[in-house]
């Protein structure tokens, strides 16, 4: 490997990031389905030719994909090695979550990039398709006990061979989705993004030469590793543990523990998940690639300036015992993976807070609350309103947590209430902050939200919810207190009721005029509540965000002396 001068490295690093960003932008623009177009549930990058490691990844894709994409490329490298006939112009496609991580809705496309007849690197594109078959539209089946009830499963196969698209694969894909038009549009968008990446790499290599770009890629990996080691070196050595629970798996009402031991020794960190619950029947399992990727997401939140490069993970060991909820085997269902990885991030933060409380934030609300309300209109046409809802972020050494934020694994914004009301026969009676939902602390958590949604359609509707944090609240750090529990209720003829499994339920029948109410958790607090300034407590009370009695209970009564 030739040494590259640091200035060319700076320039090339920016150029390659821009290629990945431009691939993201291409798909966001072209995608038909709003989960990609609006919520940016997609990602693109460049990956190492031999190891599949992430070299460069776009900045605007979904955070969880930053770590998970290299597993998709590794799977393709294995497949190509087994077949022994990798060619320029090949494109692989698959959604198998046990091989590539996350869940079956994420369609992964991987394309080898050749230069002068030799494999140079891989380009990859992942995007969340609107529907990939299975038992329920949108593939969020809370009752699934096998992947086959969630969606159809596609292992890595060649969508194109040496530049010729295999129409048979497309025909199979489109026959296995409820929304073929949307799937076709997203597939075209992803192919377009890969084409663009290929073209941009050609231009870059024409300008700088393959050898220079290759040394830049190697150097960027070393640099990322050096940055991570320098950060770890600055932290105290030691071993810290934390645990937290999922309410249940949606099948049996038993809590599932997630446990981590975080050890820092010199410039190496180990995250050991021994003692976490075993693989379960319901869809909150995750496959090993997802677990490793989630560790990466947590680390990048703790060290936000680190680059999206696999070098970051070299000094980090992630250990998961076999048979764990966090290393679930095929064909266990994984559709609810978001809840499990949010809890993983929470326990990593809680453990890290014991080592360096100022470097992390307290737990965020910790559930995506996938709520679907569906029915038939008077003309017989079906409608489905499906969305995720927000909650509070954790307090930090700098400030209170953010009110009503998005999940740490996502950057998706919520659809406007007026867009939902215009598209579906519903009315939001309430779309507001949820007072007293934040964990108390020197810097309290951010507030969760209350959404109350009434059905306007005379035929009524049916609702389902897949959520968490109904039994175990988001935790505070550094002696901060916990946020409020997630609380879901629905209106019936006899009054308001709540689901037996806390935050998971299907088949809730609603009449016209009846509503569901979702009260989401606030974030955990940071620091001792008694250290919060009386003026801040008084302001929260005056704003109606904290009830006076609650303020007395958490903070004492000195705030009552503050004049407003």
């Amino acid at each position, binding site marked *: 490997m030739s040494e590259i001068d640091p200035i060319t490295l700076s320039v090339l690093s920016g150029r390659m990031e821009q290629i990945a960003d431009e691939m993201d932008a291409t798909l966001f623009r072209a995608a038909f389905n709003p989960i990609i177009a609006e919520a940016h549930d997609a990602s693109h990058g460049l990956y190492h030719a031999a190891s599949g490691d992430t070299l460069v990844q776009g900045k605007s894709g979904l955070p969880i994909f930053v770590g998970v994409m290299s597993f998709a490329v590794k799977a393709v490298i294995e497949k190509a090695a087994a077949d022994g006939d990798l060619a320029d112009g090949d494109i692989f496609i698959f959604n198998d979550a046990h091989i590539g991580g996350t869940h079956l809705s994420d369609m992964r496309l991987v394309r080898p990039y050749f230069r002068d007849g030799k494999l140079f690197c891989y380009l990859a594109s992942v995007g969340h398709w609107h529907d990939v078959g299975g038992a329920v539209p949108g593939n969020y089946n809370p009752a699934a006990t096998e992947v086959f009830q969630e969606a159809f499963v596609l292992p890595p196969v060649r969508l194109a061979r040496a530049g010729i698209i295999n129409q048979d694969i497309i025909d199979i894909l489109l026959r296995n989705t409820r929304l073929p038009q949307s799937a076709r549009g997203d597939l075209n968008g992803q192919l377009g993004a890969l084409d663009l990446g290929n073209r941009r790499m050609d231009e870059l290599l024409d300008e700088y030469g393959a050898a220079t770009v290759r040394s830049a890629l190697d150097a960027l990996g070393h640099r990322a590793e050096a940055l991570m080691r320098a950060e770890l070196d600055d932290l105290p050595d030691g071993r810290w543990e934390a645990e937290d629970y999922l309410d249940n798996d949606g099948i049996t009402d038993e809590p599932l523990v997630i446990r981590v031991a975080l050890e820092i020794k010199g410039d190496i960190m180990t995250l050991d998940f021994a003692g976490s619950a075993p693989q379960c029947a319901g869809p909150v399992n995750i496959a090993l690639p997802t677990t490793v990727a989630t560790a990466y997401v947590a680390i990048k939140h703790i060290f936000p300036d680190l680059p999206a490069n696999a070098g970051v993970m070299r000094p980090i060991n992630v250990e998961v015992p076999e048979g764990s909820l966090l290393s679930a085997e095929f064909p266990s269902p994984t559709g609810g993976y978001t809840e499990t990885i949010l809890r993983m991030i929470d326990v990593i933060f809680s453990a890290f807070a014991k080592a360096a409380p100022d470097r992390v934030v307290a737990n965020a609300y910790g559930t995506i609350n996938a709520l679907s309300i569906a029915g038939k209109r008077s003309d017989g046409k079906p409608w489905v309103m499906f969305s995720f809802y927000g909650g509070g972020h954790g307090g930090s050494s700098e400030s209170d947590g953010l*009110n009503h934020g998005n999940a740490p694994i996502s950057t998706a914004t919520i659809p406007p209430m007026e867009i939902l009301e215009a598209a579906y026969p519903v009315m939001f009676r309430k779309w507001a902050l949820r007072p007293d939902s934040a964990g108390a602390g020197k810097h309290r958590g951010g507030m969760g*939200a209350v959404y109350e949604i009434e059905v306007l359609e005379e035929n009524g509707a049916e609702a389902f919810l897949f959520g968490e944090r109904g039994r175990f609240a988001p935790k505070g750090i550094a002696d901060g207190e916990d946020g409020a529990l997630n609380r879901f209720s629905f209106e019936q003829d006899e009054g308001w009721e709540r689901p037996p499994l806390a935050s998971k339920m299907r088949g809730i029948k609603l009449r016209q005029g009846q509503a569901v109410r979702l009260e989401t958790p606030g974030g955990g607090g940071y620091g001792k509540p008694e250290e919060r300034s009386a003026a801040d407590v008084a302001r929260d009370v005056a704003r109606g965000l904290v009830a006076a009695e609650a303020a007395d209970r958490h903070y004492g009564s000195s705030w009552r002396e503050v004049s407003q």
Partner: protein
Amino acid sequence: MSTRMIGVDVGGTFTDIFVLNETDGTASVAKVPTTRPDQSGGFLDGISQRVSDLSEISVVVHGTTAGTNALLERKGATTGVICTEGLRDVLEMRRRDRPRTWGLRGDFEPVVDRRNRLEVPERTLADGTIRKPVDLEAVRVAARQLQAQGCEAVAILFANAYANPENEVAAVAAVREIWQSSHVSASSEILPEIREFERFSTTALNAYLQPEVSGYLDRLERALTSGGFDGEFMIVQSNGGVMAVDTACRLPVRTALSGPAAGVIAAGYIASSAGFDNVITGDMGGTSFDVSLISDGHSMLSPQTAIDFGMVVRTPMIEITTIGAGGGSIAWVDKGGLLNIGPESAGSNPGPVAYGLGNTRPTVTDANVVLGRIDPDNPIGGKLERLDVEAASEAIDQHVGRPLGMDTVQGAEAILRVANSRMAGAIRLVSIERGFDPKRFAFMPFGGGGALHAGAMLKDVGIARAIVPRYPGVTSAMGCVIADMRQDFVQTINSLVDQLDTNALTAHMQAHVDQGLVMLDAARTRFESRELSFELDMAYVGQTHTVSVPLSVRTEKEKVLPPTAAEIEAAFDAAYEATFGRLLENGVRRILNLRSAVTGLRPKFDLRALAPIGGCKPEPRTKRDVHFGTKWHETAIYDRLALPVGTVIQGPAILEQPDTTVLVEPDLQARVDDFGNTIIEPSENLS
């Protein structure tokens, strides 16, 4: 008696004045320090430097940052909100986003305190049905409570008011009866468009700005009038058009990007006069590099912007992409050994190390000083008689050279190379990434520092030539004099094309035209012609992203003739295919919004008025050593403004004028065109 048109751009450091004598077509410029906190001092001082009798002025057009600053510094008025029950927190909940992707830190305070956000019983549904009439007594009680709590301005924010404003209109009338001032903003008046957070935020920010901005404009107008001014006073909007001062007082949120927009307007006009309809502008200031693209003479408009996290303004504005690479941006080497530029900046105070005001970390300007590209004996900023080259060199050694194993000059070259590559990245972003080939574009640097980096942009991005305007430092002030008068309107339609009520659509178009023409008629300025334009935001059912569909609509004596559904479908297909390359078979077409613009085209002046007159043989004023690439070159230094039309100067050379340095690198040449612009292009001696 001669008449004059005056453009005034008030920036952070300087107030720029551009004076056009309409009688003889001559122009002059002035630059005075911006006064704080009341900017009207510098404003009037600058004008009086060039015009002694204010009664000779026909038009004053102002590009202002008063609104932007009030938003960024949170210095607007105490504002109240009266809203639909259940929706008190929409402003605070935003669209459930966060300030930064990574780190999960930071919180958010909306401009309206929760105590000043009051709910009243009322509800309109998405189809416009009134489910619950507004309780006007509750509205009055709320308004009085807000007054008692010290609110100076109030925003009325009702759900689905875009679909049927009846409840909101009734509430607004009730509030206006008892409110102490005219500072009452209603969401259906400010932005009758679907999406409650964007509409509420724009309306609340408008209310928040009203007392501040209208007070400022009032003071200016009174000062002008008391000085004898009897002409038209107008304000530049973010969309690049101007509006009458009373419109600006009513809709101050439309000034959010007033200053930068004027600069882009001027750049577009200068470039097209010089024969370039496709131009990418680059405004390099102390902390940022702002890039904008003009294609076929048209600026790109974006529908909304966030002034800061959670402070969304949805009104059409000239699209300007900003990166943190300005003259004051700090160069630093990270723990992994990579050289970075910005985003931290020394700004203009303390500014670069060479200014001697206390900063010790090297900036982009310091690299330019060390390499001889900026004349240390004639500093543009700072307080020293001579720039401190030694201190700049030492800072580069300490923070860049030694960590990377380089000498001072290599360190300075490295800083420029990385800064240039970041700036080139911004140009690629607005061009290549949006489907424009930069080879078809000219690059126009303006602001103080851009012309030092023009050559690098040509090389890094493959742009054919750069055009440096004759007065790059006063481009925004010139833009004020050039800009047309323009009003934008929006109305959410939300209908499938095959169910469209074309009469209702036409009625909305007509209402927009009528309101726009009333504003043009009320203006005392002269228009060469008037233009009406209409666009529909459309998509296939199921898609959330819309495309802008330009609609050619026939009018007869300013009466809009209804478009047919077939015309709308054909226009959508053309726009959709141009954007995505293919249509969707059996897709159902939907109209979300109508957007109308009414423009009064103002007379343009001939830029030849700015060209140098006569000419002598161009002689270098002096010579100095300047570093390019790997060696020092003895470089001729010219007085730029004295160069006659047609002069061609081979690089390496430097052209200097009081506030700008134009760098001509060794394999480039500079040519003075008929307007006094400098065209930088590959040297003919080499080809």
